[in-house]
């Protein structure tokens, strides 16, 4: 059972949350000019990192806000929490 540090509510049990998967996925800037490969990339292709992973989480049974976590997908250690409104180095 992970303990997730919600940036709004504090440390809560994992089952209050929903994992929204890999973060930093950028929608094609010019949708009508993006081809099938660009759409496939955006919709489906993922880095699927084994190691520190920037991901989106929703506090579904709490404040219902989305935020970002950097969580290691092997050790499950959480090393960073970030609100969506905060600037970051790697977006």
């Amino acid at each position, binding site marked *: 059972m992970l303990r997730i540090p919600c940036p709004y509510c504090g440390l809560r049990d*994992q089952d209050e949350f929903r994992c929204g998967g890999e973060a930093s996925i950028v929608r094609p800037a010019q949708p009508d000019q993006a081809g099938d490969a660009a759409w*496939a990339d955006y*919709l489906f292709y993922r880095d*699927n990192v084994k190691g520190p992973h920037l991901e989106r989480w929703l506090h579904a049974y709490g404040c219902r806000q989305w935020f970002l976590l950097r969580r290691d997908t092997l050790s499950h250690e959480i090393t960073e929490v970030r609100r969506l409104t905060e600037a970051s180095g790697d977006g």
Partner: protein
Amino acid sequence: MRYSGFSLLINALSRHRDWPRAWRDAEPSKHYDVVIVGGGGQGLATAYYLAKYQGVKNVAVLEKGWLGGGNTGRNTQVSRSNYFFPESGRFYEHSLKLFEGLSRELNFNVMFSQRGILAVCHSRHEMEICRRWANAIGMNGIDSRMLSREDIKKRIPEINLDCRFPIWGGFVQERGGISRHDAVAWGYARRASEAGVDIIQRCEVTGMETSDSRIKAVDTTRGSISADKFALCVAGHSSQLAAMAGLRLPIVSIPLQAMVTEPVRPIFHTVLMSALIHVYVSQSDRGEIVVGGGADAYPSYAQRGSLDIHRDTFSALLELLPIFSRLRMMRQWAGVCDMAPDVSPIVGKTPIENLYISTGWGTGGYKAIPAGGDTLAWTIAHDEPHELLRPFGLERFESGRLVDEGAAAGVAH
């Protein structure tokens, strides 16, 4: 050597001390016609069918750990072909038919027991969906039959029909069943090795040497190995291996847990699945009650999963089968499932000319081992997708022609 009643008798005379190795502990050569990365069910089956049926014997299977130690050693052993779409039906039915003859084919007892797989429904709406599903399966030419409440009670006397929510009925595929997962791995390994395939364990691929947009060789912990063709059969680590070749995949890796109780005498004679009360259960030939449930909700490579899944899976199990409340849980583990967006496999060619891939098996790859191996071997030998694999190519994510088997995959995720 052939395993037989006679060989058992002869070896008894020497107190079973002279059985030969089941497969050669091969030293890696510098070059092969085909290198298969991944010594699980898919990789070993592919090697076997290449050597036995495609005439390609100069093959190596590289496994970073011990063969069959990944998802092939961690699943709940179910085989069935009750999927929804015709493409899936054709593929999984091919696999089920191969399972039916597998012990004979491999001269190894895989203990395939076709004890039926039952899905139960807990509302009028679920019954309608199941009827639609059972009809679709029938239209695929595959056996399936709706069951009443009474039918289910007759098959499973221990079931709590008035669980929350009460069971309305269900449907069954009689030819579905379970087998011994280690035996499938070992059976394919033994026959592949016999046919000339080098199985090289404790050999981890750490990088790939490319030239002219082809893979020239793989760097491994036991040296560099070159080949004409390469196949990635590394469920759970497809993204990492693909990245070595400069490829990204439409894959997310999530944990799926399974657990077994202490062994007890035969009491449970079928495979039971409930989508709503999320659990699936069977009894292994060792007597353990084998239980699985939903996948953990976040990506992980840890092969353990977390405790909240136990709570959910055990409550589901005891709601349906209260008799098991006195059993002690013996062991729990998890695999790493490579999930494709449409929960259908991704098998065949890649954008790299001589690299093939077998991934996206998600939570349902075990039942597909024979067909996955057979069709991938054909694909590698002919350098074009086998007929059964054409709907499951990587290109479907660009064309949009997904095969959405989320429901039939049977595992909540």
